[in-house]
């Protein structure tokens, strides 16, 4: 503390060496685009900030912005902790991200059309055929079926990280049912309440219009005229961990939230049970995994889902968003080939680099991975949420040995990457009562309708709240931050 002055929030903040920090440069000087933001924190002491932080969390509880914890059916609910120091992305950085995302989604959409059609990319050996056709997520029964509306990935969430060179890289694609967008909007509401003048000063682009864009995107896929279209959001129910988001989307789009038992199919047409009898449904934004959509199609032993739904879909009578069968495009084993897809389909170089990946299904890669296990991050291709992975550099010898057996037994299930020093952002450290560098990622959201894609200017910044941690998932001690994308470059 300086004499005669109060301690300021960012006093003594030091970025980690060898790591890119979102707000400060390597010498600890604020980056030019965040000067205006930091000025808003000038008068704030750590104590004052702690108080505001607590208020923000309280208001999330009372608004019920929570996720349910699976293990507890009595409804234990947790908030996804928000750190109210925002992450700011300059207009210039963002324009590159935007271009890169649209390019990537265009390639992935084309890839899925190809895989469920002629399979040219496999025939020409650009992507190994057995890798795609052998994946559980590939649904051969859907081959030659064109989805109503013609777009297979209307909603995508692409996970980006920022490497020490300051470049955004793609870490993972989510083209099935990406979640988290409700927190983007809710976090903005929170920071607007807490830092109104900073939001204004920093020329932040709004994110609140996402639900309206989403509704327009869904409508564009309807098999009938827009004015006659009835759209619904399909949820597994209140015990699902993302239930808050399902209600959020339904509420902010003004759509009805339905559970599978509310729907039934007759003559390849989907109906919802209403107090006035059955009424037709044309577009379903489903937040249910493929496997639980339709027991007739996926698993006859299951009681979940809407029997006959896939037949209605195949008949072109209902749009399902996203399209079933997309899992073979965001499979972690397919990920290493996305740059090749971009070149193959679009004849362009990828705008966004990604992380070099070893595919254990390839013998050479496998032997490298097994030899270098303690230096690598190994991930199961069919798991998510930070589960089924080995963080080599932080693992014990036993953990490595145990994982080695798993990889040897089923090489197809694993990929490996060198650990990237994820960028950090100043984050409130409750225990230390100060702001400290914590690792972050970014999940932007892309909406695509026939002929055009739109990138939400912002996204979900997840932050590993635990010191030294690289895992940002909400289920594993992660929190989130409001992400500010600037309208123009603001440098003074």
């Amino acid at each position, binding site marked *: 503390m300086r004499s005669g002055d109060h301690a300021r929030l960012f006093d003594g903040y030091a970025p980690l060496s060898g790591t890119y920090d979102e707000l400060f440069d390597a010498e600890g000087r604020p980056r030019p685009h965040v000067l205006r933001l930091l000025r808003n924190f000038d008068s704030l002491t750590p104590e004052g900030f702690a108080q505001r932080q607590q208020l923000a969390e309280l208001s999330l509880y009372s608004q019920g912005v929570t996720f349910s914890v699976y293990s507890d059916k009595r409804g234990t609910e947790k908030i996804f902790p928000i750190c109210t120091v925002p992450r700011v992305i300059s207009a210039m950085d963002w324009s590159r991200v935007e271009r890169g995302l649209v390019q990537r989604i265009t390639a992935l959409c084309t890839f899925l059309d190809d895989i469920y059609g002629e399979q040219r990319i496999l025939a020409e050996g650009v992507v190994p055929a057995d890798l795609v056709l052998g994946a559980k997520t590939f649904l051969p029964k859907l081959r030659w079926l064109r989805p109503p509306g013609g777009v297979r990935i209307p909603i995508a969430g692409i996970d980006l990280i920022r490497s020490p060179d300051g470049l955004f890289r793609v870490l993972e694609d989510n083209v099935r049912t990406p979640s988290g967008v409700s927190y983007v909007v809710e976090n903005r509401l929170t920071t607007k309440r807490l830092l109104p003048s900073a939001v204004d000063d920093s020329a932040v682009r709004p994110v609140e219009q996402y639900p309206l864009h989403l509704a327009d995107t869904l409508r564009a896929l309807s098999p009938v005229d827009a004015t006659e279209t009835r759209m619904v959001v399909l949820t597994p129910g209140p015990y699902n961990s993302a239930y808050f988001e399902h209600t959020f989307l339904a509420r902010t789009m003004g759509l*009805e939230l339905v*559970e599978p*038992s509310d729907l*039934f199919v007759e003559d390849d047409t989907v109906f919802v*049970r*209403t*107090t006035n*009898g*059955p009424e037709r449904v044309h577009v379903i934004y489903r937040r249910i995994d493929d496997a639980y959509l339709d027991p007739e199609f996926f698993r006859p032993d299951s009681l979940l889902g809407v029997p006959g739904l896939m037949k209605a879909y195949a008949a072109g009578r209902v749009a399902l968003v996203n399209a079933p069968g997309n899992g073979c495009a965001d499979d972690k084993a397919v990920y290493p080939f996305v740059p090749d897809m971009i070149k193959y389909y679009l004849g362009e170089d990828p705008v966004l680099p990604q992380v070099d990946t070893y595919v254990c299904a390839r013998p050479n890669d496998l032997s490298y991975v097994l030899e270098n296990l303690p230096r690598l991050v190994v991930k199961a291709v069919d798991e998510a949420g930070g589960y089924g992975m080995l963080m080599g550099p932080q693992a014990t010898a036993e953990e490595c040995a145990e994982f080695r057996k798993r990889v040897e037994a089923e090489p197809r299930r694993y990929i490996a990457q060198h650990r990237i020093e994820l960028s950090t952002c100043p984050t409130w450290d409750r225990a230390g009562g100060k702001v400290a560098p914590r690792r972050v990622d970014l999940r932007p959201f892309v909406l695509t309708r026939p002929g055009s894609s739109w990138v939400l200017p912002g996204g979900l910044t997840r932050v590993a709240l635990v010191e030294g941690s690289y895992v940002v998932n909400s289920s594993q001690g992660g929190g989130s931050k409001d992400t500010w994308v600037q309208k123009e470059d603001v440098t003074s």
Partner: protein
Amino acid sequence: MISRVADHCLWFGRYLDRAESTARLLQATRSLVFDADIPVTQCWQPLVIVSGQYPSFVSERGAETAGNGEEVQRYMTWDADNTVSLARSVFAARESAKVIREVLSLETWEEVNELHLWLGSSDAQALYNENREQFYRRVRKATQLVLGLVRSTMLHDTPMSFLWLGVMLERCGQTARILDMHHHTMAREESRLIAMGTLEGSPTPPAIVRAGQSPAAPHAIVEVALWLSLLRACSGQEAFLKKHQGRVSARAVMSFLLFDRQFPRSLRYCLASVRKLLDDIWPGRPPDAALNGPTARVEALGAWLDRRARVFAPDEIHQLLTHVVDETALVCAGVGKDIAGPARTEAPAQKASSAQIQ
């Protein structure tokens, strides 16, 4: 609207109004203990009886406990096994609110959620222990605020009609139960007044007993406290006094809570509202008795109540209330059935109210 959602709207309304009503009843009974010269046991025991929980209460805690105000309050406020306790009602209302989250306005949801979170907090426990009156007040205010927000921030369309249908059906039951609490005393006062010649034995229009002037004054004043307590338990004291210019009697109070057309918790008013809401939800349904649906049942019950109003015999109050409670339950069951919508296919029927506790 979606059948499952309609069902939860209805139950949301019911649970919410039940929570308020329970808080109000506990509050009114507390003050009755101070105001009236009635044995404490006779203040609290009827409350457990009309809640429908008497047998299980007695089997767990013994019959004498039913006269213990603290025990009864704890049971009716916090007990997790008591399906009509305040805490259970608020929990259930909030569970329903979660299901109909996209139907409720943000303000409405937040208020319900905050009430739920508060009830589970140590703050609520502390307030309960330190200032019981304030505790009940706070619960009541929160539930009243929710219903106010429903009216002022939501679309006045079918979901809201279902919600208010739940509220009104619940109120019918609550008002009937509250009236029934002290029906023995009511009948007693009637017969005493008849014996003293103050009242004729024959049915008369709602009579006014001049409590302060009649020879029965010493008793009547004790019991005036009881009647006022019933009115307070229905938020009706001021409304009643306005209509009767301060003259309180068992018969007048009963008539008011049963038949008044303008008091929003009288049985007649609640049934008329139910009738109207059913019309809003399913317009143009003939109230034909042969159809036996909820619309027809409410219509018939309303007409029956009109006839009873003309020839009201207070000593039959218990039978009258029992009939109303039974019929209301049937109306509610009928609504539950109709919510599933007219059948059109052989698709398996929707299980409508699996989540409900009562």
